[in-house]
């Protein structure tokens, strides 16, 4: 498959452990945030989103935490599996108006079996 990026920050996690991927955003006006997963040779795939009126949102095996004070977002993956190996991007936008998503640079998650 194709390599999405060669010089991304990398997180290596043992299979079964929990993963935490962090993201700092810059736009104080952003109030809607999304995490995407991009596997090699594929386009980004929606994982979970959160609006600024929430601090935490949970999905299946994933949790997103939002700290608006320090403009920080994190994605927690429980019981990481080999299939979770991918590049993870956070994206932000002000939800009012028609402003495109702005993506971060991404983090490569490698799961060690």
């Amino acid at each position, binding site marked *: 498959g194709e390599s*999405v990026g060669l*010089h991304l920050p990398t997180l290596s996690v043992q299979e079964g452990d929990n993963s935490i991927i962090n993201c700092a955003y810059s736009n104080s006006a952003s109030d809607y945030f999304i995490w995407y997963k991009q596997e090699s040779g*594929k*386009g980004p*795939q*929606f994982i979970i989103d959160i609006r600024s009126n929430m601090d935490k949102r949970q999905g299946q095996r994933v949790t997103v935490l939002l700290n608006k004070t320090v403009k920080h977002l994190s994605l927690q993956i429980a019981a990481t599996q080999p299939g979770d190996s991918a590049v993870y*991007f956070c994206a932000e936008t002000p939800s009012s108006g028609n402003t*495109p998503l702005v*993506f971060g640079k991404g983090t490569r998650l490698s799961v060690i079996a």
Partner: protein
Amino acid sequence: DAGVTQSPTHLIKTRGQQVTLRCSPKSGHDTVSWYQQALGQGPQFIFQYYEEEERQRGNFPDRFSGHQFPNYSSELNVNALLLGDSALYLCASTIAPNMNTGELFFGEGSRLTVL
């Protein structure tokens, strides 16, 4: 239900040439956005089409142009190619007015290499 499909998947061009990339949105979607993803970077917004018109544009030169057809499919054209245009070009579709929500569905991209 077919997702977002893009063509070609890979192509090689030389500097100064022109390229056209194609995208068919997910069934039921009427809004198409194009993103450029350089190696090691997140996707960058190029422009968005809805009702056959460019609705928004990112910070890209006029060499980048597009079109949307009545069947909602879209093309991205890049003229006078530069080495720096080498990237993965992603198409994403959604249903207006969900243009900037997580309801964006991405295709697998067209990998352009400019020599």
